[in-house]
């Protein structure tokens, strides 16, 4: 195609014959010029106000790149707006000179993967579908052309305030305008930078069709959660068999004269595990009295001593409300993390009475070997569930952020 003159400023312009240019933007006066059968027609003037018409496009006219299997060359750029919100639609010619589009929304890039009336189907429930994915309405608005550069194989109408609807199913965004569908697939900024050899600003927020890594990984995260819980259960059940109902120590502490009685010794018994949990059970047939047993586990090899005290108390009486009791004659406690070794138990008691109660004469003490307790399992289970909840929370927050600019957000309740 031969060079033409701008009807407005007479500047010399060179339409690209290979892409079948029908609209060219004068680089000198920003006029839009229509071309049909070698005849030119002034379609209108773009605003020269730089605050409105600054293209500030990340891709410039003539930039060449290789995107998803196609060599592409930027031939035209349109900047459109809906009020304060604007975006770029970039026309690119491939090796066969067919024109495709890249849509740039707040720094998020998407490449057109389908263009036509039948790109999107409607299923029996009247949902829009693209490649079996259900599209959800994100936005419905009208858009103006506020700036343009380069040339296009169709007529650009700057006076048209056309209505469009955007539907999303990440990574896709299907835009319906003038009876046509344009389906865009999200392209990460890093891929665009590599493809065109450019450096881009960081995208703003979450792109409306930007894939969520939380959504993409939800199946794997679910599997991890299930497997983790199964492992916890299997390990806990398997190691639970180490518990024994046979007491390591089953002794009776004489409490007749505890002040003048030396500690009684029981055992020895052996702990094989690097760390063992022991359940200590103390009981005494007391009434209106208490007893405290000081218990010391003495490692016979090292004389290292681990000690604790366990007590029982039981009171009863009758008042205006009738008979009452308080306390218990039986008490258990879990003593954790006793190292392996051969141990003796030393026990010494103290007693006391209340309200004419009789001091206890003896107390039974039993020690059982316990596997790691259920609290270990519950703690680990709680942490796994908490971690899963954080994952779900992050997924929710990501989606809420995506939909924050939409009037059709499923994350915001609106009065109908």
């Amino acid at each position, binding site marked *: 195609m031969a060079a033409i003159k701008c009807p407005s400023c007479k500047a010399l312009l060179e339409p690209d014959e290979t892409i079948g240019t029908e609209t060219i933007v004068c680089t000198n006066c920003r006029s839009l010029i229509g071309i049909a059968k070698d005849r030119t027609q002034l379609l209108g003037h773009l605003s020269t106000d730089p605050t409105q018409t600054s293209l500030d496009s990340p891709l410039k006219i003539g930039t060449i790149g290789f995107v998803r299997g196609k060599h592409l060359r930027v031939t035209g750029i349109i900047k459109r707006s809906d009020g304060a919100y604007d975006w770029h639609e970039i026309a690119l010619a491939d090796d066969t000179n067919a024109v495709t589009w890249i849509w740039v929304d707040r720094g998020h890039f998407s490449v057109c993967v389908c263009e036509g009336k039948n790109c999107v189907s409607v299923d029996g429930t009247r949902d829009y579908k693209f490649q079996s994915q259900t599209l959800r309405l994100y936005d419905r608005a009208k858009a103006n052309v506020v700036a343009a550069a380069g040339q296009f194989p169709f007529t650009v109408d700057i006076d048209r305030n056309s209505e469009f609807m955007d539907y999303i199913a990440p990574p896709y965004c299907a835009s319906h305008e003038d009876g046509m569908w344009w389906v865009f697939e999200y392209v990460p900024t890093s891929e665009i930078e590599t493809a065109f050899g450019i450096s881009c600003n960081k995208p703003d927020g979450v792109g409306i069709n930007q894939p969520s890594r939380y959504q993409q990984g939800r199946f794997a995260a679910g599997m991890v959660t299930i497997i983790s819980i199964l*492992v916890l259960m299997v390990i806990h059940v398997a190691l639970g068999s180490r518990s024994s109902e046979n007491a390591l120590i089953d002794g009776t502490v004489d409490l007749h004269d505890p002040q003048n009685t030396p500690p009684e010794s029981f055992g020895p018994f052996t702990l094989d595990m690097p760390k063992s949990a022991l359940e200590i059970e103390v009981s005494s047939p007391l009434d209106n009295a208490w007893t405290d047993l000081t218990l010391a586990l003495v490692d016979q090899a090292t004389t290292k001593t*681990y000690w604790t005290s366990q007590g029982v108390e039981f009171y009863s009486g009758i008042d205006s409300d009738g008979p009452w009791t308080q306390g218990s004659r039986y008490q258990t406690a*879990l003593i954790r993390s006793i190292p392996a070794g051969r141990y003796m138990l030393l026990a010494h008691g103290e007693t006391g009475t209340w309200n004419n109660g009789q001091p206890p004469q003896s107390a039974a003490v039993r020690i059982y070997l316990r596997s790691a*307790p259920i609290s270990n399992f519950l703690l680990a289970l709680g942490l796994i569930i908490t*971690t899963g909840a954080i*994952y779900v929370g992050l997924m929710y927050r990501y989606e809420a952020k995506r939909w924050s600019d939409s009037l059709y957000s499923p994350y915001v309740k609106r009065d109908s």
Partner: protein
Amino acid sequence: MKQFKKNGAVVIYGATCAVIVGLFVLADFTGYAVFGETPFGEKPDAQHTIIMRFHK
């Protein structure tokens, strides 16, 4: 597996779960109880001193 290779969120989630399970397995294998009464150890107090005096 593809999700693990390319998805940082899943990798972090999986690693966190693995650490939790690992610590649990370690605790259960070694007989460590996270909750429970810790023995008072070797620090003597009055009662302990009485017992040890008798013991000796």
